């Protein structure tokens, strides 16, 4: 079935095809009630994506409201400590709201406004996407409903409060296992019942076509800026890119502009939780198999009966049993190497970053940093690694204190 495994495409940047497929992955697996709406989102997206007015509106908000471009920062002390390649951070944690998520919510809400939608819904796991959605809803004065698993609401209480401050209604999801996948189910249920006035802002490069492509395009600003900034600093493109992956939007954003640069090695880092062999992890590519959920075919954590298994990670933002379909395709074509990092390795990297750089990273990019710490020492000193610092760790300090409290 996986017949695209060994054929190298002409370009890694040309997907998806018209039906939303990246190789065999992607597609539009949704209930009929939603199909006309999904098709109208696609139509609106295709009309906007090259429209100079839309793009300049995006750019001005990105500059004045989000604070783009985010800096590309040379992590001098970390580089010295690891003793190998030069390490740069793409600092998307400095964006307004503290993560890369707002790059996408800004783009989608501008699209929703073009479609004359008057109500916004979104799912959230760690709450970063929920906060970024609530933020742009406040900015554009649109009512906002966020679905969040009850379990996640407990472990991410500060973000719940932030969303409420921003005027959003946060609805606890108790169905299923009360985590991100159930929040996504619930948001889809809301959408089916409110097709005429509601726009669903999906937070990652997953879901039915055109979402994986659309979210990637909104996030690709990360990679485009990185390219310009590293050319300015080093006069050449990086040797290696590293980013963490839950659904995979920050990674797609960094990787996509470099996919056809053969010299660039690319690593996506999944969350291995307690370890892949423990079964308690969130590594869909390393520990799952292809299936169909939430509108797309992709790698999923599932049992032998095709039932979805809960993901586990110390980082709520990586705690999703699927992954964006384009990553599944990049995995099978071999263009991107997908590796995994356990909870404890991520915590160690978290501390390393705090100590050497004075930057408290989110637990999500701490996974990416753990992989950087694995590979940098064996690389020559003139090699360059760029890692996406996609979120800041303020939201995580309580969770980390629970684990490390007695050590510090």
């Amino acid at each position, binding site marked *: 079935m996986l017949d695209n495994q060994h054929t190298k495409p002409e370009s890694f940047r040309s997907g998806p095809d018209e039906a939303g497929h990246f190789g065999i992955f992607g597609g539009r697996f949704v209930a*009929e*009630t939603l*199909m006309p709406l999904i098709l109208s989102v696609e139509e609106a997206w295709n009309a906007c994506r090259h429209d100079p007015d839309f793009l300049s509106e995006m750019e001005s908000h990105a500059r004045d409201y989000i604070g783009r471009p985010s800096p590309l920062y040379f992590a001098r002390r970390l580089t010295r400590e690891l003793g190998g390649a030069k390490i740069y951070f793409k600092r998307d944690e400095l964006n307004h709201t503290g993560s890369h998520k707002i790059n996408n919510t800004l783009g989608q809400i501008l699209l929703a406004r073009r479609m004359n939608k008057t109500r916004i819904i979104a799912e959230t796991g760690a709450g970063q996407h929920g906060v970024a959605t609530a933020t742009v809803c406040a900015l554009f004065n649109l009512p906002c409903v966020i679905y969040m698993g009850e379990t996640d609401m407990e472990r991410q209480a500060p973000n719940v409060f932030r969303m409420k401050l921003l005027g959003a209604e946060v609805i606890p999801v108790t169905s*299923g296992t009360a985590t991100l996948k159930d929040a996504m189910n619930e948001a889809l249920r809301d959408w*089916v019942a409110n097709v005429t006035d509601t726009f669903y802002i999906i937070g990652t490069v997953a879901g039915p076509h055109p979402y994986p492509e659309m979210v990637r395009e909104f996030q690709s600003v990360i990679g485009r800026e990185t390219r310009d900034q590293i050319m300015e600093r080093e006069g050449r493109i990086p040797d290696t890119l590293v980013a963490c992956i839950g659904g995979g939007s920050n990674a797609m954003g960094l990787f996509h502009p470099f996919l056809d640069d053969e010299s660039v090695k690319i690593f996506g880092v999944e969350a291995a939780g307690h370890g892949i062999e423990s079964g308690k992890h969130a590594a869909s590519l390393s520990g799952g198999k292809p299936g169909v959920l*939430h509108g797309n075919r992709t790698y999923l954590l599932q049992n032998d*009966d095709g039932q*979805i298994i809960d993901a586990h990670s110390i980082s709520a933002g990586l705690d999703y049993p699927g992954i964006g379909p384009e990553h599944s395709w990049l995995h099978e074509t071999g263009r991107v190497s997908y590796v995994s990092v356990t909870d404890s390795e991520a915590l160690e990297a978290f501390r390393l970053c705090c100590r050497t750089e004075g930057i408290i990273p989110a637990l999500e990019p701490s996974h990416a940093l753990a992989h950087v710490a694995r590979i940098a020492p064996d690389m020559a000193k003139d090699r360059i690694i760029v890692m996406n610092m996609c979120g800041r760790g303020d939201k995580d300090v309580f969770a980390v204190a629970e684990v490390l409290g007695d050590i510090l």
Partner: protein
Amino acid sequence: MTRRIGNRFGKLRRENRAGLVTYTVAGDPDPATSRKILGGLPEAGADFIELGMPFSDPMADGPAIQLASLRALHNGGGMINTLNMVRNFRTRDMDTPIILMGYYNPIHCYGSQRFLDEALDAGVDGLIIVDLPPEEDDELCHPCLTSGLNWIRLTTPTSDDRRLEKVLKHSSGFVYHVSIAGITGTRSAELEDIESAVQRIRRQTDLPVAVGFGIRTAEQVRAISEIADAAVVGSALVNVIREGIDSGRSGDDIAAALHALVRELASGTV
């Protein structure tokens, strides 16, 4: 194509009445009780049996059916049990059509062709797969029709005439009209909206039309019977199982209570 669905609609026409389609989840609340429920449905008045294939993440269904799925999965339900139940049912009933309804992933995981072969062999007559719109017909619709099973598609209030054409194109057996834009077990549609939707569907197809979502009483079944060929009841039946469990009833009692409701609903088809 299996003939049971066509035969059954023929019989209903001769009897000059509409049909009752019952929906329960295979394996809910446990395989033994679920077999009892299934076995007694025709006698209680079900003209067609829609059997839900349990799935952990049924995003087009409401809480009642999601809970039913999770109960079934928790107690050993799943694809193998579902197909065994149909096989077992067919040893005693060769006439009542069985339609499997569910989501694509468990089939994808089982292997599509293996699933189609075994479903046909077990005595299944048709499939309703919620998350396979016409855009994904190559996945299962075409292989299903080639195998000789009916592919029953959902029409919805969001299907305009152009969309209807696409939806009806590879439909067979009957058309299932989802009467509300929403999930199962929530609100009910206005009768006049259902009537105009059914008329619109009939202008584009000769297939019988069943109407579902939000139907829970004999009175509603009677009203649907006036304007469509069959009425589908799901969440109301599934709720009988949950109430039975909550009040600690035995499997026999739960099956009896569910059959009693089916009998009452069936009175609306005459």
